[in-house]
């Protein structure tokens, strides 16, 4: 006999987790869409954003909302510097070279955080209301609930921007054909910088949300690997794919954890990945010409 209340509560938790996956996946997709770079350091940028937030909350008397904005802005700036100093000189190199550079970048960021803040796990300041949310009789953790709402708003804004805003159109044009975008007067290097800045800002926001739930540590970047699964399932260059795959992976993971046990979570997620790679190697919503590494 199915306990429907339990079933619905697990579903809500799964959607919340999926929302966070989708938000982080957005950062991967934006960079890939514009520059054809799979940024393996996305998890570490997310981690850095969470640490920068901790730095602002620990060492100043700034209000939380300002600390969040400053952390997001600082991480965006770091993203821009990374693009200008490390990634742009790699333009024209093979994709695998840039891919390897981002792996190295991840290690550098971990080392940097350990140097500045040490290797100990940390807790972020409690800023999300603790009172649980009840939808009908179904329980939802407040942190997961608020994280889901934030992720949903950010994703909706980006989906809208890409269809209407001039900058979004420039990005889509650059993604479609860089040479043609140049000839039409689009500042392609500026587009590259912009997506790195925006992706780093999104990663910082996701890092603050993830860190406020599970705490932070220099190894927190492995979260990015879980999200890479979401991106591959959804399609590397599809915003909608990131959203749907994020929710799908979140739900599958939590239902597997609830009914089979925590040890089956990763098995379920990677089984989905294998299935999608067999049936649609370019992801559920990705374009067909994506090259696999």
């Amino acid at each position: 006999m199915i306990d429907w209340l339990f079933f619905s509560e697990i579903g809500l938790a799964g959607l919340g987790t999926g929302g966070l996956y989708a938000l982080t996946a957005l950062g991967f997709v934006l960079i890939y869409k514009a520059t054809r770079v799979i940024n393996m350091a996305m998890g570490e940028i997310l981690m850095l954003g969470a640490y920068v937030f901790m730095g602002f909350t620990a060492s100043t008397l700034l209000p939380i909302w300002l600390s969040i904005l400053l952390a997001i802005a600082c991480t965006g700036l770091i993203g821009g510097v990374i693009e200008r100093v490390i990634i742009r000189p790699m333009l024209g190199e093979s994709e695998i070279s840039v891919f390897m550079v981002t792996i190295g970048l991840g290690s550098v960021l971990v080392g940097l955080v350990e140097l500045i803040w040490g290797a100990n796990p940390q807790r972020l300041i409690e800023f999300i209301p603790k009172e649980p949310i009840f939808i009908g009789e179904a329980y939802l953790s407040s942190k997961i609930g608020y994280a889901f709402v934030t992720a949903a708003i950010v994703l909706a804004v980006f989906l809208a921007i890409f269809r209407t805003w001039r900058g979004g159109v420039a990005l889509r044009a650059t993604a479609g054909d860089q040479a043609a975008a140049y000839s039409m007067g689009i500042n392609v290097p500026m587009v590259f910088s912009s997506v790195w800045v925006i992706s780093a800002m999104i990663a910082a926001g996701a890092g603050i949300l993830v860190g406020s739930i599970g705490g932070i540590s220099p190894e927190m970047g492995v979260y990015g690997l879980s999200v890479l699964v979401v991106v591959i399932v959804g399609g590397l260059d599809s915003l909608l794919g990131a959203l749907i795959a994020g929710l799908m992976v979140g739900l599958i993971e939590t239902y597997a954890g609830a009914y089979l046990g925590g040890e089956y979570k990763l098995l379920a997620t990677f089984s989905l990945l294998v299935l999608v790679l067999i049936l649609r190697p370019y992801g559920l919503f990705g374009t067909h010409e994506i090259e696999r590494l």
Partner: protein
Amino acid sequence: MSILKMTRRTAAALLAVGLMGGAVQAQEKKDIVLGGSIPLTGVFAFAGVGVHAGITDATEIINSNGGIEGHKLVYVPEDTGYKVDQSVAVYNKITSQHDVNLYYGDSTAFAKTISPEVERSGKMIMAGASFASELDDPEKYSKIFIPGPTYTEMIGILLKYIAEEKPGAKVGLVHSDTEFGRDPVETAQVQAKELGLNMDLVISTAPGGVDVSTEVLKIRRARPDYVIFHGYVLAPIPEFITQARSMGLDTKFMGTFWSMDNSMVMKMGEVAEGFMGVNPYNYYYSDVENAPMLEKIRSMRDTYQSNAYMQGFFSTMMMAEATRNAIKAGKEINGANIKEGLQAIQDFDTGGIVGIPVSVKGNSVPVGRVYRADVKQQKMVPASDWIRLD
């Protein structure tokens, strides 16, 4: 032969004898090397840094008191990043450059990997950061030393405490789905049954997972009196407790050694209040009588030192004592004799590192105390007396 020649030859002979004598003495009092695969970076760096400091200080104290029966103890560490292949490379490097008799390894996986080599070399015993129950097998791992209770024994100490505090209690076990986390699961259920406790609720959490709502919902349905966490350092324990309390559960939460460091527990904030767990050592700040070693540590370092520090310190003390026993017995300094010296340790006074005299049983030291978090004092305070498992 002239008197001058005779005098020269005699002087030369005396000098040669003197030098040989000195050489023999130097050979007798050779340095005893403690090699270390230490995780100063990587996921276990939070502990590795403390362990390194603990071993360094214990070595300094031992040498300032005349070494180990006149032998200087030399500590040779190197960073492993908490990676087994790197730990093995470090072991090979240190053992090829030094005559190593004592070793500190950084993980269960490393201990299991290197154990055949330690056996083959026959020169040393090895302690480490692992309290894995599997290593507590003197037949299979004859040169291994576990500097405290195994994870199974830690759970045993907690269950013994629970059985006395609330007979027949319902206990949940939440563990990470890692080698570390899975270690005591099967034996814990057997131990609980023997003590008349109910441990039907066993929850495994995926490594790297963020949200724990699903697991907390399971706890809400089972409503255990106690939940023991194993296989974690900090996360996700605070989130578990926060969510459980927001659901109105009055469950008591407990942890094992690696989640019991005072600074880590206090990072949980207010939810730490009442959090309990087992620790085989006194805390840096423990106010206990007859604790000269604790006082010495506090005089050397005036800021809080972690549980990992105590673990490194205790490991070094015990390995040095084992070596001392071997030397006192007039035996060659090698793995078998040092291990024999280790097993001869009975009711050893650690100077306050452990609150009662300790004895080695099998490969471990099955003793510990239950502590409870007092957020107001920002300290872990004793919740039980010292518990020794027979």
